[in-house]
Each structure stands twice: as structure tokens, then as C-alpha cells.
């Protein structure tokens, strides 16, 4: 990875005022990216423990749409209008992106009702809901591949394809084994990251002490494959009005076995209506 340098701590402490049209500019600073120079071929793992990390999903969705990438969003947890309304707060319209073909949106909740109550002629990406025994996620992979493979007519291509999944833990709840989900991620990575030189972002819940072995297997397996891990955690001391949680950013190099330690940074954050503000641990503006 070239050109990485530590973000300016002073800027973080001052708390850069957000421009309302940008998505989480402070997070972009922390990750040292802008929509113009997004990297390619990377798998980013989002993980939340004892808190809700969905704001990261909203961030990456609007980030990649602004970066002019073609995005395939497998949204299993909430409805389209939910993501659309939040994205509008961050300056992006999902409905418009879908109209112009930049966004392919799989609305899990609505599709699951369709596939469950009526037999479908064509294989549906959520076909596994009808199956009695644990199947595999091949139809879902086919859907993703078809969505992101650029059309042959050579029209003005988008920058790079991006697959966004919210979230993978739901697939475990729906009867898929951890191995099936890892296979799916592997196939998607091979196609999206390696073949199409795109990016992949996935959210997995960390169940913590809930002894969910399948989830732990999935999480550990994905952690080893990821280039970037963003882990949000609730504060160990409990609920706080001014600090909603802690974000740990870990940059990794999965392909090279290296003796150098991976770089990591930890920040605390507070979620506001249209923005998330980050600050160093213990430096919340509320107590300074």
C-alpha cells in the first residue's frame, strides 16, 4: 500500500466541521481515502460487538456511490426506503442511482416474502429459504456476478464494481452454515476483487460471549482474508450519551506473510443526525 501516512491528530482533536453533502468526512480522514482515490481489489470487514455498526454500512454505500463505482448491495436486514432515507442525509439518492444503473439493490426482506410464498420459475438469489436442508449460496453468488460483470456493449463503464453485504450474520440465522457463507465470500472475492478488480465490504456481528460458534468461525475466517477491518464496540463501561462506542481500524496484508505488525488505530465516536464525529479515546468534546 503506497502513500499511507498517519492522519493529522490535531485535525481530529479539533473536530472538523462536517460539510453536509459529504459522508462522514472524518472517517474518510481516518481511513485516508477520498472518493476520488478509492483503492481496488480490497475486502473490508465491518464488525460490531455489543453495539450497532450499521452507520459504517451507510458510510461505505454513499462513499462508493460518490466514487462513481457500480455497487451491488445485498441488503438483508432493512428495507430499501430505510437505506434511501439515510443515504439522502449523506448526500446520495439511492433511487436515482438505481435508475441510472449504478446501484443493484437486493432487498432481502421483500424478496424473501416473494420467494417463500410462491414457487419461482427462475432460480432466485434467496432460493435457500425454500430448501429443507442447508444448501449453498450459489444462486446468490450468480446474482452478484451478473450484477457486477460489466455489460459487453462497452458503454461508459463505472469506475470499479463494489459488493456490499448487510449483513452476513443474517445468512447464518437463515440456516446457512458458516462454511457455506465462507464459500460464498470466497467466490465473490475471486470474482469481484481479483477478476473485476473491485472491492467488497461485508458486515458481520460479533456475538461476543453468546457462544455462537458458527458466527465466530465466520468472523475469524473473514478476518484473515480482509485488507481492512473496522470494528465497532460498545464501551466496556456501559452506555454513555456522549460516546456511543469505540472504533478500531486495522490495516492488514492478507496475501503477504510478514513479520511486521499490522497497523491499527482506535478512536471513539458519537453518532449524530447526519454525521459521525470521531475523537481520540478519552477526548470526547463533552468532557474536555
Amino acid at each position, binding site marked *: 500500500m503506497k502513500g499511507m501516512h498517519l492522519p493529522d491528530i490535531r485535525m481530529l482533536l479539533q473536530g472538523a466541521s462536517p460539510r453536509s453533502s459529504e459522508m462522514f468526512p472524518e472517517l474518510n480522514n481516518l481511513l485516508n481515502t477520498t472518493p476520488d482515490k478509492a483503492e481496488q481489489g480490497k475486502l473490508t470487514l465491518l464488525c460490531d460487538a455489543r453495539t450497532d455498526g450499521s452507520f459504517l454500512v451507510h458510510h461505505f454505500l454513499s462513499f462508493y456511490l460518490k466514487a462513481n463505482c457500480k455497487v451491488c448491495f445485498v441488503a438483508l436486514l432493512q428495507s430499501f426506503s*430505510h437505506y434511501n*432515507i439515510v443515504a439522502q442525509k449523506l448526500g446520495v439518492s439511492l433511487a436515482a442511482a438505481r435508475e441510472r444503473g449504478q446501484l443493484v439493490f437486493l432487498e432481502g*426482506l421483500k424478496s*424473501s*416474502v416473494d420467494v417463500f410464498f410462491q414457487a419461482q420459475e427462475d432460480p432466485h438469489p434467496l432460493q435457500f429459504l425454500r430448501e429443507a436442508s442447508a444448501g449453498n449460496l450459489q444462486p446468490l453468488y450468480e446474482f452478484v456476478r451478473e450484477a457486477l460483470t460489466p455489460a459487453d456493449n462497452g458503454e461508459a463503464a463505472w469506475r470499479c464494481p463494489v459488493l456490499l453485504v448487510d449483513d452476513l450474520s443474517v445468512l447464518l440465522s437463515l*440456516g446457512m452454515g458458516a462454511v457455506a457463507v465462507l464459500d460464498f465470500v470466497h467466490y465473490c472475492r475471486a470474482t469481484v476483487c481479483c477478476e473485476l478488480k473491485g472491492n467488497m465490504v461485508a458486515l458481520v456481528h460479533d456475538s461476543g460471549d453468546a457462544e455462537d*460458534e458458527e458466527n465466530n468461525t465466520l468472523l475469524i475466517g473473514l478476518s484473515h482474508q480482509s485488507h481492512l477491518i473496522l470494528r465497532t464496540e460498545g464501551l466496556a463501561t456501559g452506555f454513555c450519551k456522549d460516546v456511543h462506542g469505540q472504533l478500531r481500524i486495522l490495516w492488514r496484508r492478507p496475501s503477504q506473510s510478514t513479520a511486521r505488525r499490522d497497523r491499527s488505530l482506535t478512536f471513539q465516536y458519537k453518532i449524530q443526525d447526519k454525521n459521525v464525529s470521531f475523537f481520540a479515546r478519552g477526548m470526547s468534546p463533552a468532557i474536555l
Partner: protein
Amino acid sequence: MAAVATCGAGAGGTESMAAATSKSNVTSFQRRGPRASGTDSGGPRLVSIAGTRPSVRNGQLLVSTGLPALDQLLGGGLAVGTVLLVEEDKYSIYSPLLFKYFLAEGIINGHTLLVASAKEDPADILQELPAPLLDDSCKKEFDEDVCNKKPESDIKMKIAWRYQLSPKMEVGPVTSSRFGHYYDVSKRIPRELIETSKWHGFFLPEKMSSADKVECCSLTPGYMKLLHFIQNIIYEEGFDGSNPQKKQRNILRIGIQSLGLPLWGDDVCCSENCDSSHSLSKFLYILRGLLRTSLSACIITMPTHLIQNKAIIARVTNLSDTVVALESFVGSERETNPLYKDYHGLIHIRQIPRLNNLICDESDVKDLAFKLKRKLFTIEAEWTVRERDRKKGLPLPLVHPPMAAAASALQPAHRPDPKPGAGYFFLVSHGVQGPSTWAILHCTPGP
């Protein structure tokens, strides 16, 4: 306050709705972002449904849970299209009450009910609903309690009263336009109200006896039948707008009692490594899919204290929108604890959904206790108990009388200020002849 809501503007988006408001003189309370995909071909129509109001924060359409105190804690009410999961208390004493409040609220507002149970006939459940308090006598009793409360919760309770638009009430077809009612648990709901209301019952033993061929899927047959039943009602009665013959402008309130019990054919409460471990979570996922695409709200009570596999509880929580857990003091050592003598149990708000928003309306106070009186189910912050006693000059309840004197001589700085979000109780414990030590009796961290 006029509860104005738009229904069924499918692909209208916020722009067309904003345009609609500017054309007609309505309040700025607009339901943005349609949750129900009930499509109106003629564009958004401004209709108000009885018993609903838009959320102040994000315009989400809300219904009352039947318990105004709980409505406050959930940010105004339960959003239409979401699931409220109630984790039952150990002996199932208070959770049926929440279930009944929800259903009674539906009858009062004229909503359609769908009651599903594996152990009780829905007709019997409806007979036992509490009677609503529709006149001013409830207000008098309420005022007595107001002066005992902490100012913060005062304001919260009083706000609920400001929404009261109460015309004269009679027994009969109820035309209450209030949001959230109070119920008298010692009286039964008048039979006429039940007869004039519309309800559907799903009693599992009856449904299972009919020899329908249900396609094999990894769901247990009981859950399959229930899902098909719910989907059928939603489609037939037009709650999702897809039925061209039916234009429904009402809310469907679904109540599922004790989901997960072995009576449903599910063994999630029986053993840790159960065969049908995904049945319950799959059911919840598809149920939520049905709710999101229709004008309905659902309450599910679940005996999570019986579920031995903690992973399933975590998954079920993630798949639900709002999760509330009740913990009653019956049979626990807290029953005899003088700190809790006024209360019947604790109520934990485990999860509040972030709908159409990055943030949610979390209450600052996390330690809440509830108390059931005949006409009132109150929820208070735990530390108001201590605060009240401290203001009255009473010492904290202590075990050893000489220590009580020592403790009362302590500077107030030694006692923590009741900060929001932290509930601590201290009790002086003593060895037989040893020095006194402060021990934390009950400390509740928790996000």
C-alpha cells in the same frame, strides 16, 4: 395535534410528498419514506388512521403499545411495520399483561387483530382483555402518582397527556382518538367492544388437526402454518395494498403469544443443540418481511429464559426491531429486598431500532423498574427510589443498625450522584466482628 399520515406512496419518494403538503394545507408532520408499499395509483393521499401518529424524529408512523409509559421509552410508540419482542419474565405473570394491553389498544382504536397462540384459545384471550379507562376518573388517580415521581419522568408522563383529545366516551363502538390509553386490569373489557371489533384467531391445535399438505421446508409445521395464515390475512384484507379489490386504511395488530414453546413443535427451549435451531430465526425473518411490506405491527412474547442456547437469543434479538425484557421479582431474592418493595420487577429495553435514521431515541435511563397497580402500569428509573428516600431523609436500607448510624454520617460525596445511565446500589455489609465494608449490591452497566 392532527395525526396526518400518507399511506401507500410506493415510489413517490419524498419530493412528491413534499409537493403534496405544499398543495394542501396540512401540518408539517408528514410521513416520509413510505414503510408500507400499499400502492395508490393516484399518488399519495393524505389519510389519517385512527390510533396512529407520526414520529417526531423521522416521520415514521407509530402505534401505541397500549402502555403509555412504554411508548415514551420507545420514542413515542411502536413503528408500523416492526416487531416488538417481549422477553417473558420467569413465571409469565407480567408479559401476558403487555400482550393484552397491546391487543386492547387495538380494539379501542378499531384496528384489526390477529391473535396467535399455541396454549390458549384466542377467543379466551380476548375475553380477558382489560377494560379501558375512558373517562376522567383515571386522570385523578394518575395525578396522585405524579407528585411522587422524579421531575424528569413527570415531564415524560405529562407529555403523554397533552395528546389527549378526549371526546365523551360511551360503551359501544368506541371513537377514541387518543393515542395510548389506560386500562383497569381488574375489569374485563365490555363484550360489545369485542363483538364489534374485527379479529382473527390462530389457535395451533385447531390448525394442526386439519390435514393440509404443507411444503417441506426447514421451518417447523406450526410456524409454517402461522406464516401462511398471516400472509393470507394480509393479502385478503388488503393490508399490503396488493389486492386490487381491497383498499385498506387500517392497521393490523398481530399478537403471537409464547413463541418458541415446545407446543409450537419447536425444541429450542428443550435442549441446547436443537435440530430445528434455525426454524425460529427464519420465522422471524420472514415475518418481518411481511410486516415491512404491510400496515401492521406485531408483538411477540417469547420465553427466552427457557432457551438454553444463548446464540439463538442473540440471533433472535438481531432479527427483531424492538426488544424489551421483563424481569419480575417474584421468587427471587429481590422480592424481600426493601429497596424494591414498591416495585414488581425490572424492565430492560434491550434494543430500539434505528429506522430511517443513524440514531435512535434511546432513553438516557437504563435501569427501569415497573409497578403494576390496578389502573396503572408505571415504569420508573431505579434510582428514583433512592432519590426519593434520600430526599425524605431516610437512610438507605441497611442490614446492621449500628452501621446505619455510621453510614448516615457519611458525606454525601461518598454516595454517587444519580447520573443518567448508571444505577448503583450500595449496601453496607459487615463481618461478625470485622469492619464495615461497602459492597456494591446492584450495579447495572449495560449499553
